[in-house]
């Protein structure tokens, strides 16, 4: 039974004089505030926050939470977002005071356990990517892209100083790429050039050839790509970019398909980011947090943001720096040899600097570390095998009633098209998405990638059982056969029906306002 009383806005629940949290009395000699704060900077009143009791607050948010579909409650096949199970153990571990209550400016001697974890994670990410160096600093995948492009810009700045050549200005991006790719390129001062893809989802090699010249700095590629296939010409693409003097950037959004199967560094990438909140099970948090660690080749390592974590061995104080040790420390026992310690290395003169305050989204990185340690080498490979198995199984069931232009096989996700349904029956991808909500499924990603008309992008992840996949396929089959009017009006059973997006955008109401807003 839905409780609508307590899902009113906080401001509508407010009553003057109510309060929840109480603070202790001031235990030091108190001085008049007017003596301590200049009058012209003192507020007359505190901000007009709502006034509520603690039970009200708890009931309000507990009720709101129940208006969400989540991974904990539903199948969430949101393509490209890798909505896998978020292990509860990792939540508990992240809350340990020895991780949660560390101040970012504590002396290194007091955070050796934290630094060891971060150092080892750098090593693991390098090994999984087949690249040589790692920065854990970026706060999300898009932030990782931007950071890597700044690294590339700094690298080419140095190169053009050495060679006297012009600076490279272009970033090539396939038309199937995430919007973050071109947006990141612009923010890093590059010009974006779009390269076409074929119906199969593969890159159009002729179009690539047309755009390749000595102005190309970086080619950004998502592989497996956004239609869920492994780029058939990956090696040749990388070779041609390298021959033209450019760098290959791998958007790691789809790493869940290739853990332990293939490594970006081995198939030609010079840089990549990870989305630990996708691949390594960090909870998506209703929109975030993520993290966006990047790995790069040795020649780009000097440009990574500062600081990086280094291990200082024994009395000799030999700093390993970012030159990757081919045999990372794999000891189960967290206690390193008694003389080793971990340190933050700021002395990196070619570094691009900082991309944010403090070390990074450590809470997300910590969960990624736990996930990698829980799986080990075999387990990570089996994650990808099962993610690919689930996607192909679903594809095999769906393709009979919803065309999948890319073909019969996929990696971790696939993109079906409602294009024919649209022209035959007036049923759009959005209608199908909305109708699925009525049956207790989150919708797939729709209208992305832009290169597929009426795209429906489905990523089941390794989390789901065969029963769930069967139920989803049957539901999808039934939905596609329903009367168009039923679909146009869907969803029918959710808390609200379709919202008026046009009104929201034409007359934006972005905050709560009432006549007594200052109460």
């Amino acid at each position, binding site marked *: 039974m839905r409780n609508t009383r307590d899902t009113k806005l906080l401001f509508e629940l407010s009553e003057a004089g109510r309060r929840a949290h109480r603070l202790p009395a001031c235990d030091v000699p108190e001085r008049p505030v007017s003596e301590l704060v200049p009058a012209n900077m003192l507020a007359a009143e505190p901000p007009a926050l709502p006034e509520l009791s603690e039970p009200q607050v708890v009931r309000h948010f507990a009720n709101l939470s129940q208006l969400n579909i989540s991974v904990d409650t539903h199948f969430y096949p949101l393509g490209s977002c890798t909505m896998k199970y978020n292990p509860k153990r990792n939540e508990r571990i992240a809350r340990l005071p020895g991780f949660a209550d560390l101040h970012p400016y504590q002396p290194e001697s007091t955070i050796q356990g934290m630094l060891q974890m971060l150092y080892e994670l750098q090593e693991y990410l390098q090994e999984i990517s087949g690249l040589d160096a790692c920065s854990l600093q970026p706060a999300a995948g898009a932030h990782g892209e931007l950071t890597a492009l700044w690294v590339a810009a700094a690298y080419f700045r140095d190169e053009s100083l050495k060679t006297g050549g012009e600076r490279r200005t272009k970033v090539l991006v396939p038309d199937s790429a995430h919007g973050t790719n071109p947006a990141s390129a612009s923010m890093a001062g590059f010009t974006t050039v779009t390269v076409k893809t074929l119906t199969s989802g593969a890159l159009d090699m002729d179009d690539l050839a047309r755009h390749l010249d000595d102005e190309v700095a970086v080619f950004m590629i998502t592989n497996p790509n956004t239609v869920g296939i492994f780029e058939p010409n990956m090696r040749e693409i990388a070779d041609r970019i390298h021959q033209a003097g450019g760098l290959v950037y791998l958007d790691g959004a789809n790493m869940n398909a290739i853990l332990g199967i293939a490594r970006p560094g081995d198939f030609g990438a010079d840089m990549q980011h990870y989305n630990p909140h996708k691949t390594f099970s960090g909870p998506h948090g209703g929109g975030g947090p993520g993290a966006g660690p990047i790995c790069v080749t040795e020649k780009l390592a000097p440009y990574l943001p500062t600081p990086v974590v280094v291990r200082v061995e024994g009395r000799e104080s030999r700093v390993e720096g970012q030159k990757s040790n081919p045999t990372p420390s794999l000891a189960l026992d967290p206690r390193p040899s008694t003389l080793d310690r971990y340190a933050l290395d700021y002395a990196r003169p070619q570094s691009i600097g900082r991309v944010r305050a403090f070390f990074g989204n450590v809470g997300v990185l910590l969960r990624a570390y736990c996930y990698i340690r829980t799986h080990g080498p075999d387990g990570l490979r089996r994650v990808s095998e099962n993610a690919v198995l689930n996607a192909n199984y679903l594809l095999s069931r769906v393709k009979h009633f919803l065309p999948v232009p890319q073909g019969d096989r996929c990696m971790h996700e696939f993109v079906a098209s409602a294009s024919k349904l649209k022209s035959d029956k007036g049923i759009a991808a959005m209608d199908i998405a909305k109708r699925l909500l009525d049956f207790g499924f989150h919708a797939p990603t729709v*209208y992305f990638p832009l290169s597929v008309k009426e795209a429906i992008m489905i990523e089941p992840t390794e989390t789901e059982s065969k029963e769930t996949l069967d139920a989803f396929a049957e539901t999808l089959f039934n939905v596609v056969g329903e009367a168009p009017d039923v679909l146009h009006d869907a969803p029918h059973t959710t808390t609200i029906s379709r919202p008026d*997006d*046009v009104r929201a*955008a*034409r007359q934006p109401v972005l905050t709560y306002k009432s006549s007594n807003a200052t109460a």
Partner: protein
Amino acid sequence: MKPENLLFAKTHEWVAVTTEGGQKVATIGLSQFAVEALTDLVFIELPKVGRQVAAEESFCEVESVKAVSDVYAPVAGEVIAANDQLADNLELLSNSPYEEGWIARIKIADEAGLKNLMDYAAYQKQCAEESH
């Protein structure tokens, strides 16, 4: 204005050229076909008066909920007026595309761009092809 008396760009802008005080001025808007294709417009970012634009440069944007479309200047010159009424009344674009829904007026600096425009019949042919 009747569309039969206007010139059209491939990118769906219409142009009416007039002479004011010896100076050629282009009044620019979006064709009815374009406005209908865009559906549910929610916002227009009008060009600033005084801005110098090149032919085929994007100088204005119209937005629907989930798309942004550029409006390209058919000719080079200086923007001398923008239709401020559109900001509060976007329906003018669809209700009166060739009259009240005009977008901007450009003092033409170079007429070269006019040569690339087509008449209404040719434009209708283009629209018919695009509809398929």
